[in-house]
């Protein structure tokens, strides 16, 4: 799994890739991301995050759920090392970001839109992270083939993004994230723009890949059902100021399938999470400007 271009680590530095694979959904894995007392105030004065504390452990599937504007994207971007925090600390594999160095590559980000380069064919889009790291050769081509195969896009190498449906574009986007063989996947409402059928299908695919590859996923959504169906843990956020208000463990086994969607447990968790979300929305409401 270690690519040749990764800088050798000092002996004292724990190597995440050497870690034994943790059971999917386990809650006692090593911390992958530790957000501690993070505040984020944008230049225009918006308090996007206030005192956010969150630990994501290896093998977890954590959903960030909350009304729009509660800082989900902000938190996710901070976790990805995109954008500064106003105060507080964020650790990646128990180290400050600045010493993580090249290991940053083991993380991949999936945006709400497919965010493909329209001028490049699917294969070129998928290989972008490898190109940016100046990787080439037969091994690289194999990685690309594998990523395309995993998302079911084999044979679409030479298509342009606009020739693909929305769902297929999203698959290409996921393939691009997977091509670096990440062990942490950050997804910001990745399927929000898709129809429900496609969305359910992709959710199942992501779940399977997560289980199979021992990934850790942080998944932003505003759908209670999606959050409960996918996650081992649902983190509920409230707006104005953006903060974490609830942390609900979805104690149900994986793999999950259509049966889980109609089970009483599923309904129970959905009710619990919905109520938490309602409380969260009510917290943000009084400060809302009246029209």
């Amino acid at each position, binding site marked *: 799994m270690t690519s040749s271009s990764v800088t050798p680590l000092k002996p004292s530095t724990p190597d995440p890739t050497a870690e034994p694979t943790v059971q999917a959904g386990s809650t006692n894995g090593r911390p992958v991301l530790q957000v501690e007392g993070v505040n984020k105030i944008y230049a225009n004065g918006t308090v996007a995050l206030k005192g956010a504390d969150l630990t994501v452990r290896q093998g977890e599937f954590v959903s960030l759920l909350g009304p729009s504007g509660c800082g989900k994207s902000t938190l996710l*971007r901070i976790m*990805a*090392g*995109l954008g500064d925090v106003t105060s507080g600390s964020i650790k990646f594999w128990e180290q400050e970001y600045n010493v993580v160095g090249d290991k*940053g*590559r083991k*993380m991949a*980000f999936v*945006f709400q*839109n497919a*965010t493909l*380069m*329209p*001028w*490049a064919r699917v294969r070129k889009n998928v290989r*972008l*992270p490898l*190109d*940016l*790291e100046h990787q080439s050769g037969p091994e690289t081509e194999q990685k690309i083939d594998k990523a395309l195969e995993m998302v079911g896009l084999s044979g679409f190498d030479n298509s*342009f*993004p*606009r020739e693909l449906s929305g769902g297929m574009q999203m698959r290409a986007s996921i393939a691009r994230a997977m091509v670096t063989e990440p062990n942490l996947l950050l997804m910001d409402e990745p399927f929000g723009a898709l129809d429900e059928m496609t969305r359910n299908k992709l959710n199942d695919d992501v779940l399977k890949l997560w289980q199979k590859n021992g990934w850790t996923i942080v998944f932003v959504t505003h759908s209670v059902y999606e959050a409960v169906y996918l996650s081992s843990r649902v983190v509920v956020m409230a707006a104005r100021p953006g903060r974490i208000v609830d942390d609900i463990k979805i104690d149900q086994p994986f793999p999950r399938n259509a049966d889980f969607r109609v089970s009483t447990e599923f309904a129970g968790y959905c009710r619990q999470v919905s109520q938490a979300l309602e409380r969260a929305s009510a917290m943000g409401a009084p400060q809302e400007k009246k029209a």
Partner: protein
Amino acid sequence: MKEPLIQNETFVKIAAPMVVGVFFLLFWQIAVVAFEMPKYILPGPIEIMKSLVTDWSTLLNALMMTLKITLLAFVIAVVLGVAASLLFIQSKWIELSLFPYAVLLQVTPVVAIAPLIIIWVDDTTWALTVCAVIIAIFPIISNTTLGLRSVDPNLLSMFRMYRTSRWQELVRLRIPGALPYFFGGLRISCGLALIGAVVAEFVAGTGGSKAGLAYLILQSGYNLQIPRMFAALVLITLTGIALFALMVWLSDRALRNWHESALEVEH
């Protein structure tokens, strides 16, 4: 079964304006004959065609001169314009300090500064070229700069996540993304280069072996050779159309795989 021609989009697109054109010319010719219009006031299309044939060598020489200045100015405008855009996107400060001067170039009427340039630049060809560059460069600068700046912020974030160099960001992301804007700039700019070349020559009024179409028009006016004047005008128009068509073709070729502007409408 083959569809009737009248339902063929391409055929209609070409035929309809042609029909209008033919009727217009016909009407013009009939009017000129019917009102016994003297040809030193308004020649008919047939007179103009005759002049195109009899004065062809003079016209061709002038056309070549004008074309040379136009193309020279266009190429220089593209090179300098793109270079300026690349400079502008290096920092907001550079853009803020220099962009107003690009606007200044744009809003100054070339007719007003052409005499100065003709005094400063000895060689007439270069003097005219400079005038044409001044007119043609602005759309290139403004379009290309806009294009280089219009990057999908998420894609940019991705590049940042992989700690990409600015060079990589430019080559892999900004330049390809700017192409549609750049080609838009080319379409406007090629026409302006031609206008610049013609207008500058009107102001310069230089004759002799280096005379272009503008001088030919001036001279024909003095000599009341109005059909030749129209013939020169026809050549300028045709040149403009040809240049524009060439740019459209180039941009379609470059963008046809991915950009909406080059998409065929499907039926």
